[in-house]
């Protein structure tokens, strides 16, 4: 099919159709991103938590800005080369553009990866610590609910394979038995055949797959099938009973021509219900007849002997986490692990301590500064007496020295205003947050036996490269240089924990939404430009002007992607 006005302009618009089309598309994109930026403003203004101001590492964002600007220049060079009929120039510039897109996405990947591995835990007093969870090793570390299980209930309707695998792996070689007799139903037409599947007390093989008779997966699969079949059977019985009862009502001569009015003829209505109940009686396979696996809830109960099961908090919720408490971990697939809570504490290499949320809450309640300071001190007191806790207390003491010096410096440097108030005071971030770079600086000052002075802190603070996408644990937490204290946080002390994913808070939700959408645009744009580069030769030889037009259109989209990033960068990285 011939598409009109692709190379030549239409008389009425003076433009070729492709250009109109891409501008219409860009118009919709402007509104899409406009709406998202609007939600950013809304979320920020009405945030009920301290907004993570200038929280992202600037360098990757800055490099990405340069990369996108450079690629914007080269894409327009590529177009100009085509216009000048310089194929080699086009190939060179376009390759560079696509290379830029690739580098951009790689950097974005590093950034996202750092976020997904960066853990935060908020204490009940709203103090937040950030860091990296210790990898699970020798039964320690990681971020898990730990429960010494004695019973596990699998929901036959919804149990989820990967969860099942994880649970059986964690049970290991501990003996597992069926808690009750299990009888399954099979239907041969209307005829019900009941077969015992497993008896209470039978040992269950946890390793076999759903083909292995007697294994957990086999039992669950068979019971699930039976459960579904029985429910379907019961539904059919109910439906036909209801239909029959209404037929009975209609057959009743007191009803005129079928114009039955349920409100007026309540007696008929009651009669219909009674009929239906009679009709059903004896056909519904109730809990008693349906064997003991299904006490109407469709659960398979597995007894285990005090097996230690660790489950990621992302998979469910734990009802009580204090060590020794009777607890239940309910997973998203409605599996319930019942038992006694083990030590579900989180081992975390702390690379930031942040009291701003606590301070914000306290200010909302109009607490005095003394009281707020006291609350913060209490947090440090309650950390326990581990080595890590001691280290954090030292950091806090040094941080207090530093912020006193910093306050004085700001006052002296920027003088007082007419009312005798200092023109500049430290920000809440400086007052109430110990950043990872400060931790490194304090640690180095202590090792060197130096005093806390502004210059010393500045001297020992890592530069931009040292923490390209965030706290550099590889460099500053190895060997003698153990800058990030290891803290064991009891689960019941944690109000909320999350990695820095969209779940963390609205800031990260909108950050991932906007940068993620922008990243998809980069990928999409690069694909289109790549198509022109790798498959454009034929068109160049036959109709170079058409290819030039195409590149111009693709370039317009590419500039738009750059344009969005020009706003994303300052808004997310610098504000």
């Amino acid at each position, binding site marked *: 099919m011939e598409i009109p006005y692709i190379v030549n302009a239409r008389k009425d*618009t003076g*433009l070729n159709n492709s250009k109109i089309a891409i501008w219409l598309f860009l118009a919709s994109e402007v509104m899409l991103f406009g709406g998202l930026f609007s939600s950013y403003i809304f979320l920020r203004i009405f945030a009920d938590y301290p907004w993570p101001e200038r929280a992202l590492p*600037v360098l990757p964002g800055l490099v990405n800005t*340069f990369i996108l600007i450079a690629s914007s220049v080269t894409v327009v060079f590529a177009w100009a080369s085509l216009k000048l009929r310089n194929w080699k120039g086009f190939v060179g510039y376009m390759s560079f553009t696509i290379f830029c897109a690739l580098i951009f996405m790689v950097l974005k990947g590093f950034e996202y990866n750092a976020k997904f591995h960066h853990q935060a835990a908020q204490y009940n007093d709203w103090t937040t610590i950030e860091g990296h969870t210790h990898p699970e090793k020798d039964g320690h570390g990681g971020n898990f609910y730990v429960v010494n299980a004695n019973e596990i209930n699998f929901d036959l309707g919804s149990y989820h394979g990967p969860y099942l695998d994880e649970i059986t792996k964690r049970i290991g070689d501990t003996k597992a038995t069926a808690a009750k007799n299990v009888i399954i139903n099979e239907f041969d037409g209307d005829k019900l055949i009941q077969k015992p599947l497993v008896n209470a007390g039978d040992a269950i093989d946890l390793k076999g797959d759903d083909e292995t008779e007697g294994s957990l997966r086999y039992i669950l699969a068979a019971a699930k099938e039976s459960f579904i079949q029985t429910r379907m059977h019961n539904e059919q019985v109910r439906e036909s009973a209801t239909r029959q009862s209404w037929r009975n009502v209609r057959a009743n001569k007191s009803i005129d021509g079928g114009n039955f009015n349920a409100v007026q003829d309540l007696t008929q209505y009651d009669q219909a219900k009674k009929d239906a109940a009679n009709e059903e009686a004896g056909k519904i396979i109730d809990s008693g007849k349906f064997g003991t696996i299904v006490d109407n809830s469709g659960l398979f109960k597995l007894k285990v002997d005090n097996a230690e099961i660790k489950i990621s908090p992302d998979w469910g919720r734990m009802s009580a986490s204090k060590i020794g408490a009777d607890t239940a971990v309910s997973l998203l697939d409605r599996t319930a692990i019942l038992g006694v809570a083990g030590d579900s504490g989180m081992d975390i290499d702390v690379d930031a301590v942040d009291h701003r949320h606590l301070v914000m809450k306290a200010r909302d309640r109009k607490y005095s500064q003394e009281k707020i300071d006291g609350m913060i001190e209490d947090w440090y007191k309650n950390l326990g007496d581990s080595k890590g806790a001691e280290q954090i207390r030292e950091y806090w003491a040094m941080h207090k020295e530093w912020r006193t010096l910093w306050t004085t410096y700001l006052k002296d440097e920027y003088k007082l205003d007419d009312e005798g108030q200092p023109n500049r005071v430290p920000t809440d971030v400086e007052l109430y947050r110990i950043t990872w770079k400060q931790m490194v600086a304090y640690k180095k000052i202590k090792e060197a036996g130096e005093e806390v002075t502004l210059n010393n802190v500045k001297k020992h603070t890592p530069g931009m490269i040292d923490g390209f996408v965030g706290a550099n644990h590889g460099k500053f937490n190895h060997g003698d240089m153990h800058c990030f204290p290891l803290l064991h946080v009891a689960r019941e002390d944690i109000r909320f924990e999350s990695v820095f994913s969209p779940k963390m808070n609205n800031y990260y939700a909108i950050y991932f939404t906007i940068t993620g959408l922008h990243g998809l645009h980069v990928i999409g744009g690069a694909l289109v430009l790549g198509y022109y580069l790798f498959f454009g030769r034929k068109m160049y030889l036959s109709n170079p002007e058409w290819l030039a037009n195409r590149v111009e259109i693709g370039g317009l989209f590419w500039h738009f992607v750059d344009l969005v990033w*020009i706003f994303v*960068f300052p808004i997310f990285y*610098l504000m």
Partner: protein
Amino acid sequence: MADSPEAIKKSIKLYTIIGLLLFVFTGITVAVATVPALDFGGHGFDAYDAVIGIAIASFKASLVALIFMHLNHEKKAIYWIFLGALAFGLILILLFAFGFLDPITFDGLLPDGVNQ
């Protein structure tokens, strides 16, 4: 559209200059946000920094739109499409203002506990 080879060669020079300008202004944005000596307004992030940051970003975006996207010499139809999008985009961005409105009296009210 400049279609003659001379005009295109000429505009290549312009594109280079604009690219460099964009680099420079990116540097300025970062400097304004990170160097204390360039901190207008108070210490730390505040409204001044927001206005300056957005102003520089808008300037850079205008350069991209005007020069790279040829909006400095386009046909009428494109301007209509672009202005329409810009208008609706701005309306969308300003929608947050409704958060400040009392839905019954339409007075501009700050909800309790916000930014006080």
